[in-house]
């Protein structure tokens, strides 16, 4: 009897704890969902007094919508660069025996976390300045890509390694050229891996604040992550109506992309190779 009560209390305690943890994570998201539709948004989550005024105010902001387009441009550009270069490098590293290959990969991986980190911002700024890439979106794309490439190569190499070489050898015996093999066989087979890397790159660039903040001078080139920083009232207070609305618009594309990619490419091929 005693043990039953103890058991019950244990369960109650566990669920109370889980609810508290869940609430801790859920309430900010709830705020993000309700505050943009509130006539007077506050820092607390409450039932909204429904209105779309905040969206109108945001459209009046000269940089808000444009910054989202900038974000798409930067993220898309980096994704294209990272996926194409990482795919080629990963394929070569997976199929060709290079002495010291693993050391090279791990070394790059280690250094890559530094490249887009705070520590190298001064030399990177200096480099961009000499290359005339200050206030250039291309500069941001190149620096972001450089930082993300090693990890992307690492992820994709794993995908390539798990693809049997007999697919490619089979095509080779039929006379396919290396480029044909990549186009007809390798890319379609590792497509889930390419999609993963593309999504990962977009999410990384989308969320990065430091690199575009330092390298882009004119506000009309700044991406959403930087513009969000400027949404203050004249009094220096955070402009909650703009900030909440903009945050919602800022997160939606990434969420939609995840949903789209996981339904489109989330599947894995089965069969064709008898194990």
């Amino acid at each position: 009897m005693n043990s039953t009560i103890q058991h019950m209390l244990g369960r109650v305690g566990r669920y109370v704890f889980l609810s508290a943890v869940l609430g801790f994570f859920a309430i900010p998201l709830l705020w993000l969902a309700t505050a943009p539709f509130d006539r007077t948004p506050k820092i607390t989550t409450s039932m909204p007094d429904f209105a779309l005024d905040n969206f109108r105010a945001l459209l009046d902001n000269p940089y808000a919508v444009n910054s989202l387009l900038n974000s798409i441009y930067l993220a898309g550009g980096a994704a294209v660069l990272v996926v194409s270069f990482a795919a080629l490098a990963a394929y070569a590293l997976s199929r060709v025996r290079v002495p010291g290959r693993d050391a090279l990969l791990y070394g790059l991986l280690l250094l890559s976390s530094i490249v887009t980190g705070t520590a190298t911002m001064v030399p990177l700024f200096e480099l961009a300045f000499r290359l005339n890439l200050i206030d250039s979106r291309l500069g941001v794309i190149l620096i972001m890509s450089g930082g993300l490439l090693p990890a992307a190569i690492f992820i994709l190499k794993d995908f390539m390694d798990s693809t049997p070489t007999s697919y490619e050898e089979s095509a080779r015996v039929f006379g396919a050229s290396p480029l044909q093999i990549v186009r007809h066989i390798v890319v379609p087979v590792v497509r889930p891996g390419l999609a993963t890397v593309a999504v990962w790159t977009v999410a990384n660039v989308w969320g990065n604040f430091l690199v575009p903040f330092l390298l882009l001078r004119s506000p009309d080139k700044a991406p959403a992550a930087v513009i969000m920083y400027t949404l203050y009232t004249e009094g220096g207070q955070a402009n909650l109506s703009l900030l909440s609305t903009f945050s919602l618009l800022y997160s939606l594309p990434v969420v939609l992309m995840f949903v789209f990619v996981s339904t489109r490419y989330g599947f894995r091929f089965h069969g064709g190779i008898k194990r």
Partner: protein
Amino acid sequence: MAAITMSELTKVYPNGVRALDALDLQIADGEFFALLGPSGCGKTTLLRTIAGLEVATGGSVHIGERDVTDLQPGRRDVAMVFQDYALFPHMNVRDNIAYPLRIKKVDRRSRHAKAADTAGGLGLAQLLERRPGQLSGGQQQRVALARAMAYTPQVFLLDEPLSNLDARLRLEARTFLKRLQRDLGVTTVFVTHDQAEALALADRIAVMEGGRIRQVGTPVEVFRRPANTFVAGFIGSTPMNLLDAQITDGVVRVAGAALPIPEHAEGLVADGEHVTYGARPEYLDYWPAEKSGALPGEVVVVENLGSSSLVSLDLPGDVGTMQVVVPEGQEPQPGDRGWAVPRPGRALLYRDGSLVTTSVPAQAAPPVDHEVLVGDTPSSGTLSS
């Protein structure tokens, strides 16, 4: 269609492993040829070197009149079916079969017609829209064969064609494959580690060990007259009995018994010589009563093989164990004393591991000092497994 000629073919891997050792082999036009051997003997390397997927370190490969030693795989006019079939998972059966024609830049309509035609001939007509993942193992194999056939090559190369099928399907596929090869008449080389598969399918077999060919011959030749003790132990679903023997006074002395000298070795062995006496369990008759010219022993194990039984006899004086196939209804009991009588013309004598013959074998193998442990020879796949 073409013959394949390999001369002095050598392949040394970067890590120093000598997978092929100055190998000479000729495969005739239209022949169904098996490369047989235990794993690591170089048979797959040889197949891949013919395909061009491995570059030979030395020697040459000719297909027909052409020297293809340095040609890219795609220019050798060979088609290969891989052990895992390597069907492209993102293409349906039609596109898979038509892929070689896509590379040859045949237009879509005619390559699809050709694919449908080839698939129809192999009973795949209903499956053209399916992905490889939706096919059974046997169907996948036939798609892989259809893809190779659509290429219309001079040579087919098959890597372990039956190993990925379950036992029942394997027998079916074996018959199917032999018939298909006969109908097409294209030179076909296949690799297998299963001696039963090689005996059943091939017109000729090359038995390989350590990058060298130990014997080339028809299934009957390699089964009845293995050129050396390695082949003798490898071929046959029950390994050949190999017993230490000595020639004395014109007879072979094995475990205390006197046996007549086998016909093939008559006049070629001298008194006092140490030899190995070989006799297949299938070529020994079991006698329950004493008999001259027979090996005596004590029955230790009786294994039922279905229509016959495999009887193991312990030879006197710790010489070893010998196995005899006994027809059904005549099985002895463990503990019985029995005599094994070699059938005339089927027993063999080996000297230093090689068959005692007048002619020097074409593939002179270096004398290998085989530990002769009867009943401990490498086990091989059986027909009934």
